[in-house]
């Protein structure tokens, strides 16, 4: 079930702008680790970089946007979301299924 049933996911998250490049990279790596431990693969990363937010979040006016595309069995989605939800540097995240 876990191995055979794999779905395409797309994950975007917004980090708070005060993180430096190392912080962003380390967080990035941590998310990727979680995805791989949950059986995910083919992780493609797009860093959009610092963008002005359309509205302030936690008194931040900018955010660092990062996008991942990957395959993962659906059981891992909860765990990925949990890591994002519990880290304070993440202003927003969006984990979506992208099935063609």
């Amino acid at each position: 079930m876990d191995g055979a049933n794999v779905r395409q996911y797309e994950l975007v998250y917004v980090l708070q702008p005060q993180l430096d490049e190392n912080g962003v990279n380390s967080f990035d790596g941590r998310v990727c680790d979680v995805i791989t431990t949950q059986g995910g693969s083919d992780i493609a990363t797009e860093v959009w970089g610092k963008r002005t937010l359309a509205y302030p979040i936690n008194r931040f006016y900018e955010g660092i946007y990062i996008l991942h595309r990957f395959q993962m069995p659906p059981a891992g989605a909860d765990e990925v979301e949990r890591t994002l939800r519990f880290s304070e540097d993440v202003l927003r995240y969006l984990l979506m299924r992208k099935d063609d």
Partner: protein
Amino acid sequence: MSEQTNPTPGQEEDVDVVAEVTPVAATKPPVYIEDITDTDEPEDEGYEDEAEDDEEGFRAPEQYVEREGSGRPRRIGSDVRYDEIDYKNIGLLSRFLDRRGRILSRRKTRVSAKVQRKIVREIKRARHLALLPYTADQTRIVRKRR
């Protein structure tokens, strides 16, 4: 229905103003009763009466003429392909927002129901990620700060 309402206010006025006019009011009720019997027997006549009433009280054609004259584009998203509607495609989605950041209604976008649903869904995703504003006030705050 419209005929029933017409005679009754006339009667009330007559009674209130002068007693002399009561004969006129007396003549009216029979007509009113006849109409009821007419509408009960053949339905077509009743519909014709209603149509006549509408024509008398109907004064809107000017607006319709104006609408035909205005040469606004029929569809805002006429060139939108279903696949390219995405929460990342902010330039496209922002066309479906008005100046206050509200999602345009399907009456204005003139886009198919399927496409409109997708647009709304993706706009809401983009809003969650602060790619698009929920209201225009929010962007104003951001711009002031910068």
